[in-house]
């Protein structure tokens, strides 16, 4: 494949496991391995999947004013966030739209670790730097710095057995992070993910041949199999998680995207607060919802959503087949009158109109996970 895309540190592992490699956001990434997307998806829901997510951007923000800056760059207040705590939130622009979604972990009083989307890396770095005030310095890690995710009900047990027999993984609560050592190198582990399963993400800041050894050791565990981007997408879609650039962008607000829980009501003056605070009290005209297709067919991003009498009421922003529930699902934006779950709608696919029903964003319940204290 003649391509200038970057190979991640785990590329050789993908080839060894017969991955179908595709270019994605400037990286050569595995779409799926020999098992195929459906079996990979089911494996994550029942055992543990290993994902190469080294394409995602990783940065540190450090300084006495780091918490203050993050509380202005996002609707979330980080001023009282405990050390070791991770939060999912969004960077907002002055119009209240979403620049990117990200996970921020407070490592200590003055140091935060940010994981941003691969496709937004350069944009986010520029946006954050343009808006920093006072004592806060953003240090992006090199593109392609090793980052792994292990997701699934067996994730804790398998990770412990394979690499961390003496680490208190049980003590790491959901949405928390801690430093650890694997094969003699320093890593940072968070109990986070984007699949709806319990699991971990492991950042390996100093890339060397140890990264590949870590990958190989993990895939040798009987409960762990490598999982590609295809299943990563179907897993997050079943959970109703938004994919940036599709289900959320610079024109949608976090209230329209139905993630209003990222907004701390006491967080004053964050970028874009005018629109977001107004929408919190007055409501929105369109809202992100789940869509379940009730007849045979699959609807994709961009499909028009119609009322039963044929008026356009919105658009599908993600769509596909749900391997866990064996049905065709999606998410999209509709006029608020249709935003309640259970409304009958139509989805235009090619020259047909498929019957569908509005649904909660998630199609399966999140797995019970350790409380985040």
């Amino acid at each position: 494949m003649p391509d200038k895309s970057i190979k991640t540190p785990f590329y050789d592992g993908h080839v060894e496991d017969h991955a179908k490699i595709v270019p994605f956001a400037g990286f050569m990434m595995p779409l799926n391995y020999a098992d195929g997307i459906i079996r990979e998806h089911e494996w994550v829901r029942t055992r543990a999947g290993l994902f190469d997510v080294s394409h995602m951007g990783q940065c540190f923000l450090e300084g006495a004013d780091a918490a203050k800056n993050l509380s202005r760059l996002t609707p979330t207040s980080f001023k009282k966030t405990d050390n070791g705590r991770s939060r999912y939130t969004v960077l907002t622009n002055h119009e209240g739209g979403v620049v990117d979604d990200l996970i921020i972990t407070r490592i200590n009083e003055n140091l935060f670790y940010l994981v941003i989307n691969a496709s937004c890396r350069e944009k986010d770095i520029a946006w954050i730097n343009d808006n920093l005030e006072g004592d806060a310095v953003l240090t992006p890690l090199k593109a392609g710095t090793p980052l792994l995710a292990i997701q699934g009900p067996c994730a804790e047990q398998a990770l412990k057995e394979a690499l961390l027999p003496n680490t208190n993984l049980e003590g790491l609560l959901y949405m928390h992070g801690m430093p650890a050592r694997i094969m003699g190198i320093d890593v940072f582990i968070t109990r986070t993910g984007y699949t709806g399963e319990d699991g971990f993400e492991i950042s390996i800041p100093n890339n060397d041949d140890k990264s590949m050894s870590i990958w190989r050791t993990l895939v040798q565990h009987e409960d762990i199999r490598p999982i590609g981007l295809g299943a990563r997408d179907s897993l997050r879609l079943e959970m109703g998680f938004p994919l940036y650039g599709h289900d959320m962008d610079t024109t949608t607000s976090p209230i329209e995207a139905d993630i209003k829980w990222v907004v701390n009501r006491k967080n004053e003056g964050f970028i874009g607060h005018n629109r977001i605070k107004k929408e919190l009290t007055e409501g929105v005209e369109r809202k992100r919802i789940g869509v379940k297709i009730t007849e045979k067919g699959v609807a994709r991003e961009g499909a028009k959503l119609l009322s039963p009498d044929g008026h356009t009421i919105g658009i599908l922003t993600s769509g596909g087949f749900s391997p866990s529930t064996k049905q065709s699902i999606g998410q999209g934006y509709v006029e608020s009158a249709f935003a309640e779950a259970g409304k009958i709608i139509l989805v235009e696919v090619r020259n047909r109109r498929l019957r569908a029903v509005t649904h909660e964003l998630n199609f399966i319940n999140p797995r019970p996970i350790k409380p985040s204290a």
Partner: protein
Amino acid sequence: MADTPAHLKYTPDHEWLEIDDSIATIGVSDYAQEVLGDLVFVELPEIGNKISLGDDFAVVESVKAASEVYTPVSGEVIEINADLSDNPQLINEKPYSDGWIARIKLSDLSELKEMMTAEEYEEYLNTLEA
């Protein structure tokens, strides 16, 4: 390496045809199903449809994407593989037998001259993989 049965004809769009007098059974090749990945839905043509060379006459949907299947021949749809509507993965599992898509009564037998033999199709696949 993709499987290519010797008795079939192939097209550059990765369809196969089995010709029996003036009836063609059409499906997609092993290479095509491999590229498409796990199929989850097949939109079949209707029996009685008149189709012309190059028309999109079926849609195969994988977990990731929808792909149109273009007919390599002109004629009338006389039979469809209804099993695919409940079990689209037949195309993944048995692309050359249980995964057939439709049977067409050919209206222009000269179109068959354009088809590749199994040997020619294998050479064609090699050029794609190079």
